[in-house]
């Protein structure tokens, strides 16, 4: 099967006055049709940067430094912006941005704001656009009257549904979802997750699902990509990460241990002391070594490569190197 999205040795740095922040540092992976890849990690590990980079719109002062992003076999990095706007962004890949539901303009109706997206990316008559919006509102479980409402009249869950509908208008194949449920209550979160699963089937979508919540990721993602300090440290199937054997990388292991569990009695909650490193001058050796409880001599000297430790399961940790 051919991949829908192929990222090859991608590097994207933020060029600040203090130096280059290596937010995306040599990342490669493939997204298959109908698959959901979950991107997890703490804040500041490059999850959102990777999302916007794939959409070919790194946030300034971010710039591509190296690598390729193939969408349906076509490298999109060298394409002119006009071309991306016309054929790639929203047509092939769309994104539900973090906190998007709180970025709706309070002075325009929901319908007006959804219409803006259509005007920007597609040529269609007002009547066609109108009926398209109504159709998609139906798919996300909102009544057509919502078009005439203002954001403050809607609950968080309803706003998020409207934002999701907007991301699907132009029939993208890939949708990047950046923390789509973080500001919502648990029940609304579960409802939105159910909706996403339904839409994924209905429209044959592939998702990149970004969240810091490992428990949530377990419910949605076929494969999990764990990021730390701009790099992939572990990549495996849902079963490989959450199954009985447990994850391979100490970072994933500790993130999972820090995830609160409702049905297990815990005497002590675990946490990871410290914070992710400064990416202008990342630590020598493994970037996680200063916070790792399993680090030994080699970890502080040499950076571990991402290697396959069993079929379909990759980790970047010296513990998994033999010899």
């Amino acid at each position, binding site marked *: 099967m051919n991949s829908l999205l192929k990222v090859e040795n991608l590097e994207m740095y933020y060029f600040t006055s203090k130096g280059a922040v290596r937010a995306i540092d040599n990342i490669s992976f493939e997204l298959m049709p109908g698959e959901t890849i979950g991107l997890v990690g*703490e804040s500041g590990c490059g999850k959102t940067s990777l999302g916007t980079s794939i959409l070919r719109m790194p946030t300034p002062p971010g710039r591509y430094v190296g690598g390729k992003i193939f969408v349906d076999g076509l490298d999109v990095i060298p394409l002119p912006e006009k071309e991306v706007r016309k054929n790639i962004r929203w047509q092939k890949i769309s994104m539900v941005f973090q906190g998007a539901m709180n970025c709706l303009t309070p002075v325009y109706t929901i319908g007006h704001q959804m219409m803006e997206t259509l005007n920007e990316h597609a040529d269609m008559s007002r009547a066609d656009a109108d009926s398209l919006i109504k159709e998609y509102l139906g798919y996300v479980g909102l009544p057509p009257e919502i078009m005439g409402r203002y954001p403050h009249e809607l609950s968080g869950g309803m706003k998020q549904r409207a934002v999701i509908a907007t991301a699907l208008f132009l029939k993208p194949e890939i949708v990047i979802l950046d923390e789509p449920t973080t500001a919502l209550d648990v029940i609304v979160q579960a409802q939105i*997750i159910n909706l996403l699963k339904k839409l994924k089937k209905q429209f044959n979508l592939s998702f990149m699902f970004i969240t*810091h919540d*490992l428990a949530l990721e377990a419910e949605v993602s076929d494969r999990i990509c764990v990021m730390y300090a701009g790099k992939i440290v572990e990549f495996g199937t849902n079963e490989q990460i959450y199954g009985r054997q447990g994850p391979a990388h100490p970072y994933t292991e500790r993130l999972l241990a*820090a995830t609160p569990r*409702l049905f297990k009695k815990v005497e002590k909650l675990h946490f*990871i002391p410290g914070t992710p490193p400064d990416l202008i001058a990342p630590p020598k050796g493994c970037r996680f070594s200063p916070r790792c409880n399993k680090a030994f001599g080699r970890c502080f000297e040499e950076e571990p490569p991402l290697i396959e430790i069993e079929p379909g399961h990759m980790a970047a940790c010296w513990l998994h190197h033999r010899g």
Partner: protein
Amino acid sequence: MADIILSIKNLKKYFEPHQSFAQSIIGGGQKKLIKAVDDISFDIRRGEIFGLIGESGSGKTTTGKLVMKLIEPTSGQMIFNGEDVTRLDKEKLKEYRRKVQMIFQDPYASMNPRFKIKDVLEEPLIIHKVKATIEERTKMIVKALEEVKLTPAEEYMGRWPHMLSGGQRQRVATARTLILNPLMLVADEPVSMIDLSTRAEILYMMKEVQKELGLTYLYITHDLSTARYFTDRIAVMYLGRIVEIGRADDIIDNPLHPYTQALIEAVPEPESGKVNIIKELPIYGEIPSPANIPRGCRFHTRCPYATDACKTEPEPELMLDGEEHYHACRRAYEIKAERSAKAAG
């Protein structure tokens, strides 16, 4: 009989909605009161962590504000440490606030960015006119920082808030409340803005401090997943009412109210094998407006188990089950039987 530190009796808080000038002249139409807190009663025991759980719009934050005395109740009574604190004059209020302190949600917004940590911690001493020499104050600040494990304290005192991580800031926020030797802390979503890896760190620290100093916490959250670890007892609120209250373990292992059941089932667990499953949630739609509370049992509009009685009969009061587990569902046992029959296939 357990030692009660705070007793809330039939507390209500109704807000009047805004009316336009024209409306107020014509006087037409009935004003619909927003019943944010609608007759709740509970006791918090000395030295326990009491969790108040519910969705946005359930009235949990309003309850926290009432306990902090940031707003006045419409009716009802609050007894703190044996004293009626429902209405307090300015002097008494200041004294009360010294004993009951608050930890806010956002550690980034709750600190003056131009204050060094030392100043952040000294401010409550100034506000409450604590008589102490400079050396004594410094000692108090050092002690508070050591209690939240920010050591060496002297080093942190000279830093600015922007130099600290979210977790460290929430530690400073906790130290700031501890400096006045309070009896009780109200924490409204203290970890919801913090990264998962640090969330556990803050809860752990808060629990250690609570044990060491024998404090009482009122912990307000929408996230049940931390409740089992963190709280001793839980009250579940829905649309201004308490629908279930009891020991944390009992509530989570044996929830009796369908709303609590829905809250629990919605929590994701980090386990494999759930990707292709659409979770069947035992609840419909979203929470109604507190200006328009459904008649009968206020949960019936979202409850998959509601019968005609639930829609028409007066709302059930809290009923006792076992030792100290109360619920407000008239069909609790029937629902339990239905659910276990369904689970058995």
